[in-house]
């Protein structure tokens, strides 16, 4: 983080060139929501296998991935096809990413195009020299286990290909909607949340920062902590705005009334306001957040945008390494190795990647819905093999099991 004494003028370093790619139908819908004037600087690109939905997209640049073999039917919900198509057109994707400093990928994982294309696109963007941050949604539980498996696989691949992945399990939306919410509305809410996240990150990176948050900070935060990250974007205006944003933040359903903050181990807080942002306000917000966070590592940024006038916007990205301490740390090795999930020494591989369980674990309090699929969740305790210490008394130190390899507990990627 770099503390700049004054607001950089317009002649300051050029803003990073940001390209926002949307893959698949869900991505396209999200992109439409982004076609607002504040994103005018961004280059929007839609990538899809389905010509019809691509035509409806407002994006100025469209990439249609097609192959005669599939006879215009797109990927047909098969991520393998989506992937194959994307790999075929790898050079096209790469050239589309040329010139960008930062590439955002928006996608709804689970289908064919989003799940298949996104990891390949991330790889292409990386090769083109851009930093890649993916914003993805995971399907609802009721969408069936094939979509779920596909989404998980794609998420794994995306994690190893992109610099950072911010993922929103759609299932958490149940906290936001009631019995009478229409399906359309539900998807709109999911999309809205993700778009808010994109907006928050976008502002974080493009607005001149008084206390700047670098992209590297962001990536370091989300990297290898994907298992559980939550984000919230709130804004308030008026004289009591600092208090109001804190209240809104703590009441935010995605932060689970502040509980997520208490459990996360790294939190990024970015404040954005008009020129009248006072130190006292920054202090008030940060103090409250800190109180909630407990021992989490906090990265803080503050920026001023005259256009915001009276408004104060706060973006919070909370990342948590594991749900149940050391046990869930097992999720991390899977990151570096998307394909092999088996533990050492012939441990049986969990049928579904552990992330899913963790995500489900958080939703325990949600009201049980008729449509929600009951999944026998696997206790995450058996995932890390402690090797020769498997049967010995665990070496606990402040609640941490020191028998679990340090690099796993610290989430150091090994690849």
């Amino acid at each position: 983080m770099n503390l700049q004494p004054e607001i950089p003028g317009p002649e300051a370093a050029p803003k990073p060139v940001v390209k926002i790619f949307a893959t698949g139908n869900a991505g396209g819908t999200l992109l439409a929501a982004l076609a607002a004037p504040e994103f005018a600087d961004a280059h929007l690109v839609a990538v899809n296998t389905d010509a019809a939905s691509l035509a409806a997209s407002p994006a100025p640049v469209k990439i249609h991935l097609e192959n005669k073999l599939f006879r215009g039917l797109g990927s047909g919900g098969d991520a393998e096809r989506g992937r194959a198509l994307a790999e075929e057109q790898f050079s096209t994707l790469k050239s589309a990413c040329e010139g960008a400093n930062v590439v955002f990928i928006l996608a709804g994982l689970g289908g064919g195009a989003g799940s298949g294309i996104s990891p390949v696109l991330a790889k292409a963007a990386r090769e083109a020299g851009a930093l890649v941050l993916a914003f993805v949604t995971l399907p609802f539980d009721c969408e069936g286990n094939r979509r779920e498996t596909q989404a998980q696989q794609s998420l794994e691949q995306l994690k190893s290909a992109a610099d950072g992945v911010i993922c929103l399990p759609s299932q958490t939306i149940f906290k936001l909607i009631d019995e009478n919410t229409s399906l359309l509305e539900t998807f709109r809410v999911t999309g809205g949340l993700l778009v808010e996240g994109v907006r928050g990150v976008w502002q974080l990176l493009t607005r001149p920062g008084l206390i700047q948050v670098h992209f590297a900070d962001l990536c370091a935060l989300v990297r290898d902590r994907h298992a559980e990250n939550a984000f919230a974007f709130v804004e308030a205006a008026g004289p009591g705005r600092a208090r109001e944003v804190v209240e809104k933040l703590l009441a935010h359903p995605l932060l689970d009334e502040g509980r997520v903050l208490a459990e996360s181990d790294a939190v990024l807080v970015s404040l954005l306001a008009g020129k009248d942002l006072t130190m006292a306000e920054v202090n008030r917000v940060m103090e409250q957040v800190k109180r909630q966070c407990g021992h989490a590592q906090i990265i803080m940024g503050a920026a001023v945008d005259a256009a915001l006038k009276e408004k104060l916007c706060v973006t919070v990205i909370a990342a948590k390494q594991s749900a149940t301490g050391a046990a869930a740390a097992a999720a991390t090795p899977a990151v570096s190795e998307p394909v092999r999930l088996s533990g050492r020494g012939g441990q049986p591989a969990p049928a579904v990647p552990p992330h899913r369980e963790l995500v489900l674990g958080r939703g325990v309090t949600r009201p049980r819905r008729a449509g929600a699929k009951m999944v026998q969740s696997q206790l995450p305790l058996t995932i890390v093999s402690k090797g020769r210490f498997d049967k010995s008394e665990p070496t606990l130190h402040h609640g941490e099991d020191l028998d679990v390899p340090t690099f796993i507990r610290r989430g150091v990627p090994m690849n």
Partner: protein
Amino acid sequence: MFEDANIIVGLEIGTSKICAVVGELGADGALNIIGLGQSRSRGVRKGEIINPEYVEEDLRAAIFEAEQMADVEIRSVYLGVSGSHIRGFNNRGRHPVVSADREISEDDVQDVIKNAKAINLPAENTVIHAVRQHFSIDGQDGVTHPVGLLGARLEVDMHVIHGHANRLQNAIRLVRGTQLVVDEIVFTGIASSLALLSNDQKELGALVIDIGGGTTEYVVYSDGVIRHTGVLAVGGDHVSNDLAYGLKVPLSRAEKLKIEHGAATIADAAAGQTISITNEIGLELKRVNVEQLQRIMSLRLEEIFQLIAEELEQAGLTNYLRAGVFLCGGGSRVPGIVELAENIFQMNVTPGHAAGVSGITAALDQPEFATAIGLAKYGSIKNRKRENKSSLAHGFKGVFGKLLSRS
């Protein structure tokens, strides 16, 4: 054959090896190491016995080897104990001086020590050592010999090391089962620091870290007395296990890789370098990235030091370590470990070797043997005291405070 009383044997039942050191007490009371026996330990995990049969077998082998080398018959040993159940803490005892002239007598000193040792321990725990630190008279600290001084209130600080009675008994019974007498049990951390530190260093303040196979013991000396002791049940075995897990190789292979290519810091040369693992007939099975290997090791060792540094920071001892940090145990052989420890503790770090004892130099220079040598040294100090004061109580609950603090 030597006179039995002059032979002192230190026995360490470690996680990776069982080691017996035979010392001979000279006429001037100096210890001379004349024999050493060791065998690979198979029945110990994290410093505690899990398979008594294996331990007994390995123990006999080590004792036999030591007897052969020293050409003596070993009858009794000073037994080193360790394990995560062992804890140390400081306790203060108070005693009002009641005599009419307010002169502190020998009895007052005995009483205050007794009070300091009256501590609340869990029922299943027993005191291994109660080491005297300093006296204080009417709030005046740092008095070493209070007898004859005047005062109304005598206080003493004790460092009490205690452990789980059954687990300690396990080791004692096992050794007794091999027809050996256990003179005393000694916390291995104290033994190592006895072997490593000179009196000056104890006075200046020093931290001794013994990184063993299954446990890491640490002892802080300052002003000549033990201030802090602790055991982390993490050691070289954990490093191997991490490597086995991270590199996806069998444990035995991980052990070998650790010894051949391990380092506590990531060497520049390691970037991109790979080692091929071959089977018996030379076919390549797998390639292992050296940088990754060293990173896994470095993280684990760094964590061990950080945990110790944090604990000392909390105890407020960091600024008292003017002689620096001393390393021993097998873990101190890892290349780069001194640099790593210097980075974390921000002070002078010395790979220790047994000072103040003479004898087989091949044994004295090995950091692995520091504990066993220290045990023999402990015995020699104890013996010297016994000659001076023949009435000293037997058994491991005896008063060793004086010996340790002023040795």
